[in-house]
């Protein structure tokens, strides 16, 4: 019963939002002092509230705070952190940062910078993986600067093509182009987004595989040459290349393809002498072929689904192997038990083209009960800032099988209280009862295919309830407006009314 010695005494978490909270939780559980950094807009953010130390690193824009390598390293040295965990996004896949961390004599909780560089540039990654024997999607083997050249190459590959950021990830700087006349706008948009997101506006072009599924394999490696996989995740429910729903295992993968895919993923990790948590992404074509898409050299947003089906804590494991220890499990220990599904809850309005909806959270009560997990950065009264990604929380459920997991997700979604801002929770309620999703019969075009029709939010069977609720709400609002200056002669019932109204969020 003796507790393990902690891998580090103090770790700086160079991130914000739910992933910073996730890593801080992992640190606290291992007895590590977690250090938060924050921008001026994030003083009241949950990751700051949960850290043991917290330092402001600059103004709200991430380029002036969370992307300030020098400032973050200065804080790390000043507070005596031994290691830096980058989360995902921001500097997580920035090899320059990783090197700077190492040069400062600190431990980088991530893969070797060389591995990051190979995979960080999507073009060199394609080349390296081809050499390692992985199947890749046809496309350019180097970045394209010139619009005319891009047009020529796209024509050669044949439309539709994908324009992708060389430094990309998470769908940023990515555009599908159906025909030549859309190309110029797509190139402009992709370059600008990529420049803003990664500080690198280079793009490349790839054949567009129609109706593929996005299936990825979680790999894990240590510094002792051990490489394992932790099964696959299906992340095909996407909108504009932003994943919305992820699950493990993939509902349609046959065991032979799974074996091939997981084996190839481990092969990729071994080829680049990988270390820590990584993800090898594949496109699974309708004909059963799979193509290497890219490797994400970091912890993924969707890592919890893997944690729930394997029982392995990936953040703990990252911290252990970063400290030079052998990974605390072997391939035989990794068994898939049951089924897990995650949805990404964002400050977006699904009824209005998923437009971002920052603002103040009025009420927040996450679902609870059996096999429901919420990884989030929310609390009642939290002001969602406009400066960052709209991801607020992830809701993850586990069930004995996929049907049980879907039923549990439905229950949990309806139990989720989040008002004051609009979120995409209603959209997920629709998805969980939508036949193509329930039967597992979906691909990466799923959301766009059904968004305007079967996944519309505007129609339902409770018109009468909506009318009653709206009429009562209006009645109370007008009652309140009439009672402008409540004096001592007022009856208590009007006070009660005012109280009710206030709680209704009308004032």
């Amino acid at each position: 019963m003796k507790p393990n010695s902690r891998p580090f005494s103090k770790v700086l978490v160079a991130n914000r939002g739910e992933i910073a909270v996730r890593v801080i939780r992992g640190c606290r559980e291992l007895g590590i002092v977690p250090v938060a950094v924050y921008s001026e807009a994030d003083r009241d953010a949950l990751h700051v509230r949960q850290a043991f130390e917290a330092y402001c690193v600059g103004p709200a824009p991430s380029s002036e705070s969370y992307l300030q390598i020098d400032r973050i390293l200065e804080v790390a040295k000043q507070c005596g952190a031994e290691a830096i965990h980058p989360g995902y996004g921001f500097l997580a896949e920035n090899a320059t940062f990783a090197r700077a961390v190492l040069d400062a004599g600190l431990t980088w909780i991530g893969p070797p910078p060389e591995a990051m560089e190979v995979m960080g540039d999507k073009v060199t990654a394609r080349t390296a993986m081809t050499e390692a024997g992985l199947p890749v999607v046809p496309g350019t083997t180097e970045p394209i600067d010139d619009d005319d050249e891009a047009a020529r190459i796209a024509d050669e590959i044949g439309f539709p093509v994908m324009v992708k950021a060389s430094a990309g990830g998470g769908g940023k700087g990515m555009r599908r182009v159906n025909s030549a006349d859309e190309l110029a706008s797509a190139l402009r948009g992709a370059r600008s987004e990529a420049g803003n997101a990664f500080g690198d506006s280079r793009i490349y072009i790839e054949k567009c595989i129609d109706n593929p599924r996005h299936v990825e394999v979680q790999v894990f490696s240590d510094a002792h040459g051990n490489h394992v996989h932790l099964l696959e995740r299906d992340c095909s429910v996407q909108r504009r290349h932003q994943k919305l729903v992820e699950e493990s295992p993939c509902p349609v993968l046959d065991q032979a393809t799974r074996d091939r895919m997981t084996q190839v993923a481990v092969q990729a990790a071994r080829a680049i002498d990988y270390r820590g948590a990584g993800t090898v992404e594949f496109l699974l074509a309708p004909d059963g072929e799979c193509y290497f898409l890219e490797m994400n050299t970091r912890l993924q947003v969707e890592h919890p689904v893997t944690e729930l089906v394997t029982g392995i804590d990936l953040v703990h494991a990252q911290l252990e192997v970063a400290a030079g220890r052998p990974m605390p499990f072997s391939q035989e220990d990794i068994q898939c038990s049951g089924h897990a599904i995650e949805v990404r809850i964002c400050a977006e309005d699904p009824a209005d083209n998923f437009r971002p909806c920052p603002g103040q959270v009025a009420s927040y009560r996450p679902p609870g009960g059996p096999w429901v997990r919420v990884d989030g950065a929310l609390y009642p009264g939290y002001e969602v800032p406009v400066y960052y990604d709209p991801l607020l929380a992830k809701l993850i459920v586990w069930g004995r099988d996929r049907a049980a997991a879907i039923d549990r997700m439905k229950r949990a979604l309806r139990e989720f209280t989040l008002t004051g801002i609009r979120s995409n929770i209603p959209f997920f309620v629709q998805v969980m009862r939508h036949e193509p999703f329930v039967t597992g019969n979906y691909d990466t075009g799923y959301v766009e295919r059904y968004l305007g029709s079967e996944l519309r939010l505007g129609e339902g069977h409770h018109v009468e309830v909506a009318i009653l609720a709206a009429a009562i709400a209006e009645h109370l609002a007008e009652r309140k407006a009439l009672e402008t200056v409540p004096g001592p002669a007022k009856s208590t019932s009007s006070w009660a009314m005012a109280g009710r109204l206030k709680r209704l969020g009308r004032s």
Partner: protein
Amino acid sequence: MAYEVQLGGLSVRAEVREQENGCFEVVVDDHATVVDARFPEPGVMHLVRDGEAFEVDVRAIEDGHEVTLYGTRYSVQVLDERKKALRGFGGGAGGRGGSESIKTSMPGKVVALLVESGQQVSAGQGVVVVEAMKMENELRATRDGVVGTVAVAEGDAVEGGALLLEIAPLDEA
């Protein structure tokens, strides 16, 4: 109080009366229903009607309330006599024939102006790019026309609903 309540194509008359016990009697087109409505958390209404229970999110919007339950969102217009009268004077939605406004529906930052005042544009053409929460959104011309007022400059922070620029019909230019 009595209201005209509109939802989708539906329009009904609803009157709300408070009862001694704190419940509400709502008469919808002469059909009375007693609703036990409570407000357990901000923005949340819990209703019990004849034993059936519903928990809904309620959010004030222009001229009414947005009610969300079970993955469905209902935009309900609730108009009293005064509001109905105002509406009558104001006319319908959107000025026909006049200039059209390009507005941003979300707060964010103008990262690129793709057109300038006086420039001729065609419907669907990208005119301005706004970044909000790390995503860039290209707003497009909603009609053929000529760019009129440009209310923002690149780099401006804008509120949700802010006017970005106007596009006048060709014949008015």
